[in-house]
């Protein structure tokens, strides 16, 4: 793949970059971000839900590009800064794919570049994104996503148990976790009538062990999308780069994510947006990814739906989607769980904000921030996707006002952790159908979202 030709350069920079203490790199990030906020006059506006100004979006892009050029990415194993020149970075952005076909056979779909306010409908990914699931219910939970027609691709949850045991990462158990994921997620897709649907993998590979094993012979194929990431802020390590090297050499699609932390070295909402832009740019350069996800994290709620973060996501996405053709993705990671109205309003907020900001693929939903056992279902992912379909082509100005209304329905509950009910209570887990109570709640919120002004298509 033409965007995968930098591997040796990347490894050379890893070995031979300027040596620096990690804490000094952290300080460099903080100092540089603060300087860029002043230089480019970037200011979080609490009165707006998302940004609606092209010039502001472009300034965020310039700031993010400058941060990427200044700090590069830090490798915590070699203690080196992996620095690339501006020309090298722009070259990498130039040759990144602007379309990507995933999956196989009748279940193939193609993700394409989008711009802010683009009428083209983004592609939809459904899944629990690492939420803990006991293995006996893993396949049913995954089927609840695969059977939703609005969902184009699925992504797994994490096993709370495997083979009746409590697994440990970075041990032989991680190999078994990866293969249990292969087995159960593929059977879920098969039962849903979508044997070729593309899958985000290897979700249970906390270290490189699971990825290397789960994408070997008989495991997940190249046309699935394989995860790697950066650690906050703008850091990598041998384990993550081993994944990259393996995926490049085996011709797999690379999906890279990066989650700047609000209140950390990035600072406030403006700093989170700058780091997110820099992160996406450097994921293209260093990780040679084809799709790029951000899920900035709130330090106390652990979600990405707090107002500051919605604003930051809109700024970063508009910055990247106006100035590059990268295939961007955003994941909804709400505080609320299944069978709560607040969950659906968190989804409506993030899916609308990302879609009107030009995001190419809308992912989710990691309900109850992915930490409550079995607290995810396919219905909220359906809703997340339907919102994205409805928001395609909506102006940012209109979306801004709608989101302000959506936020009234969940922001007061962010610190209450309304985790809702488990999959076993929200669904008939054998028939894999939502309960009438959950469907009624979904219908009620859909009606309200329409009343607020977002015209649902389905």
């Amino acid at each position, binding site marked *: 793949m033409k965007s995968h030709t930098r591997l040796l350069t990347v490894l050379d920079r890893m070995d031979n970059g300027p040596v620096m203490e990690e804490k000094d790199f952290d300080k460099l990030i903080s100092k540089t971000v603060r300087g860029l906020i002043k230089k480019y006059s970037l200011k979080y506006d609490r009165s707006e839900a998302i940004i609606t100004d092209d010039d502001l979006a472009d300034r965020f892009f310039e700031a993010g590009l400058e941060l990427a050029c200044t700090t590069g990415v830090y490798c915590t194993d070699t203690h080196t800064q992996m620095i690339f020149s501006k020309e090298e970075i722009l070259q990498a952005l130039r040759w990144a794919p602007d379309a990507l076909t995933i999956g196989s056979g009748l279940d193939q779909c193609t993700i394409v570049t989008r711009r802010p306010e683009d009428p083209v409908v983004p592609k939809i990914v459904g899944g629990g994104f690492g939420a803990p699931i006991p293995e006996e219910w893993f396949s049913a939970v995954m089927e609840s996503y695969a059977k939703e027609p609005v969902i184009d691709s699925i992504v797994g949850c994490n096993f709370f148990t495997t083979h009746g045991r409590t697994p440990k990462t970075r041990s032989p158990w991680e190999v078994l976790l990866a293969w249990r994921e292969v087995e159960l997620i593929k059977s879920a897709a098969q039962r849903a009538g979508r044997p070729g649907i593309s899958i985000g993998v290897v979700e249970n590979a906390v270290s490189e062990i699971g990825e290397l094993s789960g994408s070997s012979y008989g495991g997940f194929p190249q046309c699935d999308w394989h995860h790697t990431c950066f650690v906050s802020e703008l850091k990598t390590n041998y384990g993550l780069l081993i994944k990259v090297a393996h995926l490049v050499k085996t011709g797999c699609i690379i999906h890279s994510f990066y989650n700047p932390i*609000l209140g950390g*070295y990035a*600072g406030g909402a403006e700093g989170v947006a700058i780091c997110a832009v820099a992160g996406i740019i450097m994921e293209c350069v260093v990780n040679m990814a084809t799709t790029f996800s951000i899920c900035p994290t709130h330090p106390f709620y652990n979600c990405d739906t707090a107002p500051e973060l919605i604003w930051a996501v809109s700024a970063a996405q508009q910055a990247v989607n106006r100035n590059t053709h990268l295939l961007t993705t955003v994941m909804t990671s709400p505080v609320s769980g299944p069978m709560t109205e607040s969950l659906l309003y968190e989804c409506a907020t993030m899916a609308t904000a990302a879609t009107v900001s030009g995001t190419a693929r809308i992912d989710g939903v990691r309900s109850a921030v992915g930490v409550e056992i079995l607290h995810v279902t396919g219905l909220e992912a359906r809703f997340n996707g339907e919102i994205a379909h409805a928001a395609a082509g909506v102006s940012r100005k209109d979306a801004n006002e709608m989101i302000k209304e959506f936020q009234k329905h969940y922001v007061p509950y962010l610190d209450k952790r309304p985790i809702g009910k488990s999959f076993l209570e929200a669904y008939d887990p054998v028939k894999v159908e939502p309960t009438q109570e959950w469907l009624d709640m979904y219908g009620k919120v859909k009606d309200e979202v329409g009343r607020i002004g977002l015209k649902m298509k389905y």
Partner: protein
Amino acid sequence: MEQYYNKLMECVLEGEEEEAVEITRAEIEGGTDPLDIVQKCLVPILDDVGDKFSKLEIFLPDLIMSADVAKAVKDEIRAHLLSSSNGSESSGKVVIGTVQGDVHDIGKNIVATLLEVNGYEVIDLGNDVAPYTFIETAKREKVDIIALSSLLTTSMPYMVDVLKTLDGLGIRDQYKVIVGGGPVSAEWAESIGADGYSNDANEAVELCRKMMAERKAG
């Protein structure tokens, strides 16, 4: 004291380490009890800084900068306290640290310092310490007391993990476990089955003295 408090607050917020040390030295030489500086100035200032962070009025780099200043002040105080203490036999052995997910260590450092000057052998694991690291260290070093600190509510559950793991390993009764830090309360300590809670560094020393007396008696 009020003038010193205001100056120290400025130094903490602006990251002025050298000036903070200088005014602290002058305050002690002027006759102020070093422990009063800790209890009446440093601790309230750090509480205020922690409160600002919890509201995201300041960010992690500001917090670290404040912590560096406070550490410099604490080192100055420690030097004065050590020079006036006698080096008798160990009062007990304590492993102390800030639990996983939390990088605040100033309150914990003050406790560690006061325990040292009161004759305890202290193993300070620093901050963001995984539950099992406390236990491994306690076993290896044969400590008497495990002291857990947290300034963030989101990190407090890791205190529960330490206690659960000790239970799971069947070694809970070999150690006294004490907890403290901004949001930690006596009720919380009791609810999770900790042996003790202290509201400040002086109380922590008293608590450890009580724990050691119990161990020797029992």
